[in-house]
């Protein structure tokens, strides 16, 4: 199969959807050249740096029958539009009794690794998960981002596509033919029997590297990539943990009230899954600090394959001592 980068796969999804549906248009503070060349300045709009206005305008245009895409570029730039996201986009369908639909795609890159300090290295998706009325996803592969973006563009609700800045240039197989990936469907990126690792985006790849390493010791790691954050595929996570009895959650965001906390709750509040847990749930997250600039500091803050391995060993400790 041909290979595309994560970023190329995303652009291909958007271009294909824009060809299919003339109601789709794109707004961003910089027009993306390939889209601009193909679709022109009416449908690919370079805007003032005015994210609150753009985010709100997408709601109004959607309510009038269009299917806008707003590219915030980096998630950090959407914070000036929080009223429009939280009070308006998320609530307008519900608050007015579902009179019309608001199909909107918001795009935002997340994550660190770029040595660009605290404001440009954030992973704040759990803030948005907490708001009823928004769907969102964070893919780990070119294949997944393309299929999820297509689903998002065809969805009749506001959807946020969180996209990993660390993965933009990473290549992977992407089918030529049209396909979508349903929301709320996790993907088991590696099957295993001893421990479940639930990981997102870049940390899926770090977890895969950890699993390779541990495989040499005969430890079998199952890696679950939820892909969609809202709706979250609880069943796949629970089924995996029921099988392995052990759970490590790897997340590039901090732990406090985070995605990792939600997954821990999903597992522990379910009686059938809780009954199978053989060790406490382990979270491998960023430190709860603003992301620092210096390479020494930045890498001290983020989790990686080594910390995932340490986390896996920690939840397996009980098994070893019981066996000994």
């Amino acid at each position, binding site marked *: 199969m041909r290979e595309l980068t994560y970023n190329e796969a995303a652009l291909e999804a958007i271009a294909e959807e824009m060809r299919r549906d003339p109601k789709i*248009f794109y707004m961003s503070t910089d027009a993306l050249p390939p889209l601009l060349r193909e679709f022109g300045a*009416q449908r690919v709009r370079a*805007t*003032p740096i*005015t994210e*609150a*206005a*753009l*985010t*709100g*305008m*997408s*709601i*109004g*245009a*959607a*309510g*009038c*029958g*269009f299917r*806008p895409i707003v590219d915030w570029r980096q998630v950090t730039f959407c914070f*000036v539009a929080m*009223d*429009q996201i939280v*009070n*308006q986009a998320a609530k*307008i*369908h*519900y*608050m*007015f*009794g*579902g*009179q*019309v*639909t*608001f199909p909107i795609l918001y795009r935002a890159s997340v994550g660190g690794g770029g040595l660009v300090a605290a404001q440009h290295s954030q992973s704040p998706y759990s803030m948005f998960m907490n708001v*009823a*009325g928004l*769907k969102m996803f964070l893919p780990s592969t070119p294949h997944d981002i393309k299929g999820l973006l297509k689903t998002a563009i065809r969805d*009749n*609700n506001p959807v946020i596509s969180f996209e990993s800045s660390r993965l933009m240039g990473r290549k992977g197989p992407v089918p030529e033919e049209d396909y979508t990936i349903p929301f709320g469907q996790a993907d088991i990126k590696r099957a295993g029997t001893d421990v479940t690792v639930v990981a997102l985006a870049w940390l899926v790849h770090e977890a895969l590297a950890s699993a390779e390493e541990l495989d040499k010791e005969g430890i079998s790691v199952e890696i679950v990539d939820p892909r969609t954050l809202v709706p979250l595929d609880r069943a796949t996570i629970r089924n995996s943990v029921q099988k392995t009895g052990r759970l490590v959650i790897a997340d590039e965001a901090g732990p406090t009230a985070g995605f990792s906390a939600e997954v821990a709750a999903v597992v522990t509040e379910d009686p059938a899954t809780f009954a199978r847990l053989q060790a406490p749930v382990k979270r491998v997250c960023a430190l709860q600090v603003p992301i620092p600039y210096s390479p020494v500091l930045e890498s001290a803050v983020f989790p990686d394959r080594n910390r995932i391995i340490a986390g896996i060993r920690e939840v397996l400790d009980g098994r070893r001592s019981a066996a000994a």
Partner: protein
Amino acid sequence: MQSLSPNLPPDVQREMLRRMLTIRRFEERASDDYAAGKIYGVVHCYIGEEAVAVGVCSALERTDRIISTHRGHGHCIAKGADLNRMMAELYGRQTGYCKGKGGSMHIADFAIGMLGANGIVAGGIAIVTGAGLAAQMEGKGGVAVSFFGDGASNAGPFHECLNIAATWKLPMLYVCENNMWAANTAAAATHAMPDVAGRAAGYGIPGVVVDGNDIFAVHQAARAAVERARAGLGPSLIECKTYRWRGHTERRGQADSRNPAEVASWKARDPIAQLERRLRDQGELDDAGLRGIEGEIRGAIEAACAFAEASPFPTPEQATDDVFAA
């Protein structure tokens, strides 16, 4: 000074009077029913400002879009919303416009071109600017109107939207209902310059101040701005100087920092009485005619309350409906 003769057919003028009176009587009833515990939460009355909503909406087509505010009953009635479904929403019933999910601050009928009513000051300006963009892209000559208060004119979205609408020549009317007070803070204490309309100059668009209690002045300004927008010439800012007669909300015992003499002076310039007088001057309204209009309105409001009262409350299970669209 009074606006010039409107050159509007008498039927249109009487319809303006009927809509303004409907707003007033609807809100008087809503206030009573709020006090009686039939309406919950919070109610913000538009009484005293009726000429703005009716003057502007009478310059629009049904398909044109508007967005309303937390003080929104007037915009709904002016755009042609159904009183039954409005009252049912206030009563928190299933048959309300929002199935009881919205209440007084969020009544809107999307089928008549409304894009909501916003509880966040300045929260709707960007949404309706998106409707202006949609109208421009559709190319059918539609326009969109943002209603907002003097308070909202100091918030970021006002400036962001005026800039983008002027840059893209969007078919927009920005209608500032300057009622002189943002809750209990005087506009004079929060605005660097007395006229919001003056800010239009910074975006190179027309900005006019009109007497917001003179419906013909409001209507003429709106009509000129609508023509300009439909012709592809871009947005306008219309500042309507007006006044709310009642407190910020209908909550009893709330603070009202306004001078009673100031309130009285504005009541003496009642927009409804002014239109009534002018219709009489033209020989187009007499006591019997007015009684007829009042009677119809009273009947319609009684019917709306009866409809609301007879409507079922939502079931608890419906709390989880409509979070997402299918």
